[in-house]
């Protein structure tokens, strides 16, 4: 185990996230509707409309990190929800039926918005929730972007944004404030820009920041995106990362290798993985996951650019596009190998990884590996099996360097 120098901003993060949850708890009392949102969806509209956005996926990640996803899941499974469904959904549905809430209760919604850019699971889960909590539900539908983005699909999404805004006007009883939307979009742009600058420092050699750090520091870009808080946070973080770099505090001691990681971290095993990779002098430098929040909005065309950004997120793109994206990251960050996590919770990022491994290996000549597990539910994690995959990979990295 190596000695970590804690980030000073971690304190700020704690404060921010505390505030976020407090706000969630307070909102309903103060008459501010709580809107459930999916991670990749136009939260900017929700902030501009003055609602409180809440991310149940976050709750699933938290339950995973605290190692209770399996227990929450059992309450859902008792109702007939299969353990093959996404663990986030099982945690969310499980929490609705559970009698015990070891990580606190999910914040109950007044209204639910789902966007299926990420997956088809979220809409199904949120639909279930809308019946359980008996609240209205609105789906933003993103057809798969097969090749080049089509004008008609953008237009379809745009029409739906207008339907969403009309719906919000009805719910809030206020006309939608487009000036406020532009402000929020500006703040989102800033936070995304800073966040990506932080992520990019992982390309330095040795690097002051890596994927496991990013997994920790990403909460505000998800939850606070569109507010000044997120901008302040990432400005501070960027400053600190640069300072640490100057002071020679690196993400891992003695970085020999960098690898690309696909996709999401294994929350209950974050520490275990970060130490495993560090012990092999391997920095997990980059993942398309943490780069999901790279939006850039055109303030002159707010709705059009919201449509383009949220429809065309990589997870809604074709097989070949996503292979190319991995290749680009591998090149940009100077990776020496790649690790693909075949996450049984997530068909939307897991399917296709076997073929993608072959293609990426062929195109780059780099060593790469796929391993099986679940991002949150430890019943589907076998240390032995994962090590059985990763140990030979580390050997390959070393022999490739020789």
């Amino acid at each position, binding site marked *: 185990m190596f000695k970590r120098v804690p980030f000073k901003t971690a304190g700020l993060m704690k404060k921010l996230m505390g505030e976020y949850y407090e706000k969630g708890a307070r909102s309903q009392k103060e008459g501010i509707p709580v809107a459930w949102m999916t991670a990749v969806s136009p939260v900017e509209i929700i902030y501009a409309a003055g609602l409180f956005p809440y991310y149940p996926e976050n709750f699933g990640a938290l339950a995973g990190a605290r190692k209770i996803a399996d227990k929450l899941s059992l309450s859902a499974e008792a*109702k*007939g*929800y*299969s353990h*093959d*469904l996404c663990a986030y*959904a099982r945690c969310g549905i499980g929490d609705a039926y559970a009698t015990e809430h070891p990580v606190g209760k999910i914040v109950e919604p007044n209204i639910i918005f789902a966007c*299926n850019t990420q*997956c*088809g*699971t979220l*809409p*199904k*889960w949120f*639909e*279930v929730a*809308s*019946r359980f909590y008996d609240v*209205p*539900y*609105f*789906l933003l*539908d993103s*057809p*798969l972007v*097969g090749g080049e983005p*089509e004008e*008609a*699909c953008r237009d*379809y999404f745009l*029409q*739906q944004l207008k*339907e969403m805004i009309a719906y919000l006007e009805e719910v809030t009883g206020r006309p939608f404030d487009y000036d406020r939307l532009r402000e929020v979009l500006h703040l989102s742009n800033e936070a995304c820009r800073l966040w990506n600058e932080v992520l990019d420092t992982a390309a330095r050699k040795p690097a002051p920041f890596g994927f496991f750090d990013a997994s920790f520091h990403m909460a505000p870009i998800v939850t606070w995106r569109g507010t000044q808080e997120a901008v302040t946070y990432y400005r501070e973080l960027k400053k600190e990362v640069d300072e640490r770099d100057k002071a020679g505090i690196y993400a891992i001691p003695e970085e020999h290798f960098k690898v690309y990681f696909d996709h999401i971290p294994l929350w209950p095993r974050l520490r275990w993985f970060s130490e495993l990779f560090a012990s092999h002098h391997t920095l997990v430098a980059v993942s398309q996951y943490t780069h999901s929040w790279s939006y850039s909005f055109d303030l002159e065309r707010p709705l059009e650019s919201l449509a383009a950004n949220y429809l065309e997120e990589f997870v809604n793109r*074709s*097989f*070949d596009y996503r292979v190319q994206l991995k290749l680009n990251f591998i090149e940009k960050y100077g990776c020496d190998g790649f690790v693909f996590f*075949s996450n*049984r919770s997530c*068909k*939307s990022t*897991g*399917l*296709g990884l*076997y*073929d993608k491994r072959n*293609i990426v290996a062929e195109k780059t000549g780099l060593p790469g590996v796929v391993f*099986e597990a679940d991002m949150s539910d430890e019943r589907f994690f076998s240390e032995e099996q994962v090590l059985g995959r990763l140990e030979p990979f580390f050997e390959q990295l070393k022999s490739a360097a020789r």
Partner: protein
Amino acid sequence: MHKEEIIEFLQKVVEKPDWKVREWKEQEKGKAVGFLLTDVPEELIHAAGFFPYGISGGRARMEFADAHLQSWTCSFVRSSLSLALEGKLDFLDGLIIPQTCDTTRNVSGIWQHANPLPFLQEYRLPRQVDRPSARNYLIYELNRLKEELEKFSGRKITEEKIKESIALYNDNRNLLARLFVLHEQNPAAISNRELYTIIEAALLMPVEILNKYLNGLIEALENEEAAPKSKIRLFISGTLLEPLEILDFIDENGGLVVGDDLKNGSRYIDAQVQTNDDPLAALADRQLKRIPGAFYDPPHNPRRHFLVKTARDKKVQGVIFLHLRNCEPENYDFYDNMQALEESGIPAIRIETEFVTAPSGQIRTRVEAFLEMIGGEGNV
């Protein structure tokens, strides 16, 4: 032709699923475009001059798909891809994959790498159906699909051609629906297994020929004397009817399937296409008004109401949920659907299945026990 001959012929089509398509390709020197079940508008494929071939999975050697698809992928898609990799779908020149879930959304890219085809398209159904934007988008998507088919065939698909195809498929749906009615009225004349075998055959043979056979069959059945026998009335709900043997278990134990919402069942034949409208808009409208399915997302799960209402209208004594393992859309709605039936006092069981070599004895036992429970004494 006698009823027995017709049924035997259609059974043979199902036993040799490549028979009619190979024959047609040979005779017509044409191309075959497959589709994964079942919401793809066959009318368009037909109007483009291709043979529309419905792929409903099968008893495949799953190890062929294992190199491409994780074990937690549904066995419908795993078996379909396995069939392709085994060479059992090598007559296909193209494939259309409807977007019904995360599995179908991802499998097209995998398929194209594992088993490249000159024509592979996603049919991107809208996932919300109740707002005006959905219909406009669906018409766009149908038009796009039409254009892609035109590019592949090198010929324009005229409006007239689509209308002709629509008329043919409307006939086909009417005939198949008529069979359902006859089956319900006179179960002795056509069994559950026979009925659903015919739907399966419909996916595998030219509609023109099939319609002729169906006309003959219906005539024969209509002339047959009804032998009324009290039966246990059942509804089957799920994605795909698999394994077909389950129908034998039902037949043998006095069950009568009077309704279903399966892709290789009633979902295949429900709702007609208007013939006086713009044909693409008419195809879109059919899609939007089909019986509810788990992969659409109208917010309040109309399927559960549909189940209760149909069960009541059809005096159903029990519902069998036939669920493919790892089919997420079905699984998310199951609890709700089950609750709705429970509240209405309609007994139901859920049987989880997979495309494997043969159905287990356990499935037989469960079906028997369920029928016994809901049928009671003297009903059979």
